[in-house]
């Protein structure tokens, strides 16, 4: 047994660290630390910096413009990014559509679309969920009906993350009503400036805007925008979801959150006692730290399995379940530690009116926002179903 990274992997980690140290813009790192939604410009600026280094499309092979990293290298990169407050790049083009096109796309689609994902020309968003199709995705109703060289698309998508920044959307659409639901779905690429496509923002519990609804009314989409075969969409969707679940444990984010808690605990005083000296808080933080250390090892065990080609849906479901529980408990701990100082809406106050640092003052909205972790990307109930199905199989 050996829990250490190899010499090459350690050298790679050092390279990532010094790159982040040298190149990550301060304003970007600060926005990440404060739990704010980044400006589009900030994300694109960071993407351009990563692109110079060839580190944008971390999951892609070399021949398609990726760095050709192993699963372990990808893990090291995403962990270092989280620890250094580098933003998580929107995964829709890079980790979802990219890998799908590389596997299922035509040569022309690959040649046209992939470079524009890497250099930030196109911002893709995801059209999967619908008001009536969330956990039960296969029941989706958005219809694409063939008309000459076009599809006519009608329906509604929802929970479209960062759609407000996007110019393109990849969608699951129904192309056959006569077969069982999974067999009648296709994977279609749509320009958001197509007549009949309308995006509307959804305001979330924390007051912010990061998801949207997308309405399709007789939108004409060229048949050439189909990825793979007609009615092959479910196969593609399942393939894509395995990519959505890479880095699903969020070890780096949790490690960073625990570090932030300890910094806060050393600073915030309640009833003349530092939170760090309060045995109840110390014990809660210690327990979460133990959970996190175990999950870090679980993640490495799964990573080793992936390297050996044996990891599947059950592993990523386990990682998602425990990883989201740990991150949510850290958000709860952080918010709780502030006591009454978590109550005022920090956006109503100037920095010198606040009695705690601004990232701490935003603890409550960040906590509420992070309730999404156990809902999106396959709700935790669905992850339990996946594991249970395997556990109780015939």
């Amino acid at each position, binding site marked *: 047994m050996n829990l250490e990274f190899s010499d090459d992997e350690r050298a790679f980690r050092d390279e990532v660290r010094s790159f982040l140290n040298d190149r990550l813009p301060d304003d970007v790192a600060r926005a990440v630390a404060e739990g704010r939604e980044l400006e589009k410009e900030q994300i694109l600026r960071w993407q351009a910096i990563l692109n110079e280094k060839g580190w944008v499309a971390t999951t892609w092979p070399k021949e398609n413009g990726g760095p050709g990293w192993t699963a372990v290298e990808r893990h090291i990169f995403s962990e270092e990014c989280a620890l250094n407050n580098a933003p998580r790049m929107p995964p829709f083009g890079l980790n979802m559509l990219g890998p799908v096109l590389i596997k299922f796309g035509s040569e022309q689609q690959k040649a046209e679309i992939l470079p524009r994902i890497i250099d930030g020309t196109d911002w893709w968003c995801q059209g999967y969920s619908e008001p*009536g199709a969330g956990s*039960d995705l296969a029941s989706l109703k958005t219809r694409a009906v063939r008309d000459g060289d076009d599809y006519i698309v009608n329906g509604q998508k929802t929970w479209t993350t960062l759609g407000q920044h996007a110019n393109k959307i990849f969608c699951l659409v129904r192309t056959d009503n006569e077969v069982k639901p999974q067999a009648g779905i296709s994977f279609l690429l749509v320009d958001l400036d197509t007549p009949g496509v309308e995006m509307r923002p959804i305001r979330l519990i924390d007051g912010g805007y990061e998801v949207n609804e997308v309405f399709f009314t007789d939108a004409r989409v060229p048949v050439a925008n189909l990825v793979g075969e007609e009615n092959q969409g479910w196969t593609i969707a399942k393939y894509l979801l395995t990519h959505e679940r890479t880095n699903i444990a969020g070890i780096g984010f949790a490690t960073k959150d625990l570090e932030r808690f300890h910094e806060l605990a050393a600073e915030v005083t309640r009833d003349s006692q530092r939170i760090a000296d309060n045995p109840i808080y110390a014990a809660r933080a210690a327990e979460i730290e133990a959970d996190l250390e175990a999950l870090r090892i679980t993640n490495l065990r799964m990573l080793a399995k992936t390297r050996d080609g044996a990891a599947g849906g059950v592993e990523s479901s386990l990682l998602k379940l425990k990883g989201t529980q740990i991150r949510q408990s850290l958000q709860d701990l952080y918010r709780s530690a502030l006591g009454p100082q978590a109550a005022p809406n920090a956006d109503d106050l100037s920095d010198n*009116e606040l009695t705690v640092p601004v990232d701490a003052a935003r603890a409550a909205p960040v906590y509420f926002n992070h309730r999404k972790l156990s809902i999106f990307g396959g709700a935790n109930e669905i992850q339990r179903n996946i594991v249970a199905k395997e556990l109780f199989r015939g």
Partner: protein
Amino acid sequence: MDFNLSEDHQMLSDTLRRFLADNYEIEARNEQAYAAPYHSADTWEALAGLGTVGAFISEERGGFGGSAEDVAVVFEEIGRALCAEPMLGTLMGLRLLADFGCEELVEAVIGGEARCALAIYEPQAACDFSHIKAEARQEGDRWFLTGRKSAIYGAPGADYVLVAARTGQGIGIFLAEKPELIEAAMIDGGGIADLVMDGLQVKCLSPDATRQIEDVLDLGRIALCAEAVGAMTHLIELTVDYMKQRKQFGREIASFQALQHRVVDMLVELEQARSITIAAVAAYGSPDQSRVVSMAKNLIGRAGRHIAEEAIQLHGGIGMTWEYPGAHYAKRLVMIDHQLGDRTDHALRIASSAPTREAA
């Protein structure tokens, strides 16, 4: 043994519930509660007109109630309707005004013509007010305060702020008229303020109000517990309704046993929350007051978070949206734990206090 409300309390509860159901819209609430003065003057006037504020004060002091049960009845309805009106600050401030014989002000606040708030806590003093640092200085018969108060609930737009500060005799209570405040909305709606004082001239109500402050904070905690019980009750109703209506995999999600059991656990927490609140109401004024109130505030903190998080999860994405009322109930339930001491503060308070036991 009788856990039913008295006829008067039932009438107060019914009146308030009907008024809020008919007149208090959550969409309007979400506009008012996040923009200065963080509440609606019209709603406040109407609530005062119904005797809601008067219920906090006994008849001999000019009100129509004054017991912990009166307070709990009002706040349960406030919670059920997710009313963001500045009821907590008014309750606590008004009780101290009455304690110190400010008859005219008491009458004005009960009638809805004036509003008051209470400034006890400071950035470093979160639950145990013996840690406050603000100081009062006396020059002849004039008093001046210096220090920073925070977590002044309902202060934006209030006419009077009662302020706690150290005197030579203990912790006194002082009256400031429309002081300049640092105002904000709370995360869950409603106004909150800080007060920075550098020789602020005030009127002294009492140079040593330690006992009265302790009492009024415990009563405020009981109010928050009752508010939470009302909010929990409604949030669980919303969750059950949604689960009966939401279909996935060809059937109502309410039909999935794994989800049903989670709602059952929420209901168990609600019943516990209701019971400990009743216990706190009963203990108010007894030697066990602070211990049982702390039990209630601790349990409510835990149950409120559990029910809020589960309600959001069982709704899925809808539970995360601003548009959905349940999301705002969930926010309130989580944030109640940040007021007047949280579950940790109160756990420590329970652990450090010995129960008073009757001889067997």
